[in-house]
């Protein structure tokens, strides 16, 4: 009896210790060395790459063009256009998307590109925020992000972002959903391997918003992450939730230095 009790105690203690070890070292998967980092572009078939490379064939350019129109169109009760404050986006928006998500001073919270656009709409144009994944919001995001095409993703050094990067990292390495998977199990441990018709990419968000052939539409990084989460049979976080933006931020931080290619085409 005593032996059994002490054995079960020992087992419980061991289990809790293992738990502590796992918590203390959640990064069982090794982060990809910078020399081994590959853009998702490199895992695509050549025909899909050709579609992205040719502006006349890249469907994402339809949204970029629409975004340019919206940039110059007056909106809201203030009857102001984006251009009225920001001027020529080709100058003022150069490199902007490469530092998002970032920290908003006024609201003291983390914002991504779509949140920033909607803050501008409500605060400066007195207009209604655009719904997530609406054509208009995606078009403005595509137009703004396009101005960072060919530029490296910057490592945002704002110290206020640190806890959010850490939270995003914990989510990336933590298991979730009914399949008990982490992001890292696919995108760090098994990248380059075949998953159905495509290769598993490393998951670097270089070209958002992307034209995804499966969607037959442009979509944001948040949509992509929600799609991944439902594939893992986890409850996807709501659009605009801090969890999704933290994950976006971590992925951008993880892809720092990589070249932006908005609007990217993905399978």
């Amino acid at each position, binding site marked *: 009896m005593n032996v059994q009790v002490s054995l079960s105690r020992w087992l419980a203690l061991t289990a809790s210790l293992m738990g502590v070890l796992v918590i203390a070292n959640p990064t069982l998967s090794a982060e990809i060395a910078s020399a081994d980092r590959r853009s998702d572009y490199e895992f695509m078939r050549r025909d899909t790459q050709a*579609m992205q490379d*040719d*502006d*006349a*064939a890249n*469907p994402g*350019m*339809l949204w970029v*063009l*629409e975004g340019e*129109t919206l940039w110059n169109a007056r909106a809201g009760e203030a009857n102001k256009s984006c251009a009225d404050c920001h001027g020529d986006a080709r100058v003022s928006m150069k490199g902007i998307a490469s530092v998002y998500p970032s920290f908003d001073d006024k609201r003291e919270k983390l914002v991504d590109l779509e949140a920033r656009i909607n803050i501008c709409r409500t605060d400066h144009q007195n207009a209604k925020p655009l719904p997530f994944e609406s*054509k208009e919001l995606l*078009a403005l995001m595509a137009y703004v992000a396009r101005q960072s095409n060919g530029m490296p993703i910057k490592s945002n050094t704002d110290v206020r972002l640190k806890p959010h990067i850490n939270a995003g990292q914990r989510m990336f390495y933590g298991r979730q959903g009914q399949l008990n998977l982490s992001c890292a199990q696919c995108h760090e441990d098994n990248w380059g391997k075949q998953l159905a018709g495509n290769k598993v990419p490393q998951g670097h968000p270089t070209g958002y918003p992307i034209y995804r*052939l499966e969607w*037959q*539409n442009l979509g944001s990084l948040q949509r992509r992450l929600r799609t991944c989460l439902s594939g893992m049979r986890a409850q996807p976080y709501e659009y605009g939730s801090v969890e999704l933006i933290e994950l976006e931020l971590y992925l951008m931080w993880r892809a720092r230095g990589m070249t932006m290619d908005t609007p990217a085409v993905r399978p």
Partner: protein
Amino acid sequence: MSSALINVPARAKRGEIIAIKTLISHLMETGFRYDSTGVLVPRNIITDFVCTYNGEEIFRAGFFPAIAANPFMIFYTVATESGTIVFQWAGDNGYSESASAKIVVE
């Protein structure tokens, strides 16, 4: 939505074979899908495309439900004379769109 992206070379030599690329924004809803409430989404596709070069028809295409959203086409013609190349799309629900491009042949 800016609906069409056209790519025609601005200049070409007489007799040269030129590539023409068109990309048009369209849902191409097949008519076979159901929405989240179980109601059939009605078909909404482009059905016809015609390209004319100085009024003469040089290319025509019929579109069907299996064609993906935002259809992209590339086709070729011989640059015969300077002028205008006109593109016209027509489809379900009275859909109609057109675009044009100038070409200088020397």
